[in-house]
């Protein structure tokens, strides 16, 4: 089923939207989640949460690229789950709570300013990616968007792991220069 038909099912509030989405994009979203979480059970829960989020978002949203739309939701959910689990590991939550409480004392950008900073950062990242040759861009995205391992990238691109590491090193260095040039301080 093509994406327009799937989106039409969401708009009609037909539950077939969920089964069709899972059939077409289940494997893709599981990969996105698993690359981050490296745990089958957590990944499966993330993917199920993705379908729920999609159900709640469409309509009013009407994604142009359903795959990327779903991939982004899965990535966000998986990263949040990963951060939450790591916080739990670090001192049963209290350390993090104390750090968060102390964080309130530190002057910094307010939420509007932070949102503007992030929007600028995303714009610069888009410019950086657009300037890269396609193959380099794919390698960069595979590592830093999909969080694939160097080994997996090397296998998929028919390269040695050292070649992938070198390519990533150069790309990070290039990104650093671009961010400095644009005056972006994180």
């Amino acid at each position, binding site marked *: 089923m093509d994406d327009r038909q799937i989106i039409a099912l969401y708009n009609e509030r037909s539950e077939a939207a969920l089964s069709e989405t899972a059939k077409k994009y289940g494997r893709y979203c599981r990969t996105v989640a698993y690359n981050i979480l490296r745990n089958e059970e957590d990944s499966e829960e993330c993917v199920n949460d993705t379908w729920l989020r999609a159900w709640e978002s469409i309509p009013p949203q009407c994604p142009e690229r359903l795959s990327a739309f779903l991939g982004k939701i899965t990535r966000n959910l998986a990263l949040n789950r990963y951060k939450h689990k790591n916080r739990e590991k670090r001192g049963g939550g209290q350390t993090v709570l104390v750090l968060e409480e102390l964080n309130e004392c530190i002057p910094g950008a307010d939420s509007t300013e932070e949102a503007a900073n992030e929007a600028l950062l995303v714009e610069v990242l888009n410019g950086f990616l657009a300037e890269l040759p396609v193959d380099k861009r794919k390698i960069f995205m595979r590592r830093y968007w999909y969080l694939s391992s160097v080994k997996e990238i090397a296998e998929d691109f028919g*390269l040695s792991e050292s070649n992938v590491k070198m390519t990533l090193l150069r790309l990070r260095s290039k990104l650093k220069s671009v961010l400095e040039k644009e005056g972006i301080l994180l």
Partner: protein
Amino acid sequence: MKSEKLLDALGKVDETFIEEAAPIGEALPGMKPEKSMQDVEKSEQQE
């Protein structure tokens, strides 16, 4: 954390880049995996 901000911002980049880089083994329906080794070598030489 700085790297966390960068990772989060990367999550919001143009969707064409996301789709383009979908893992080959999990190729999206209708998308044909490309042989990229030669492309990589070619652009390495160009640099």
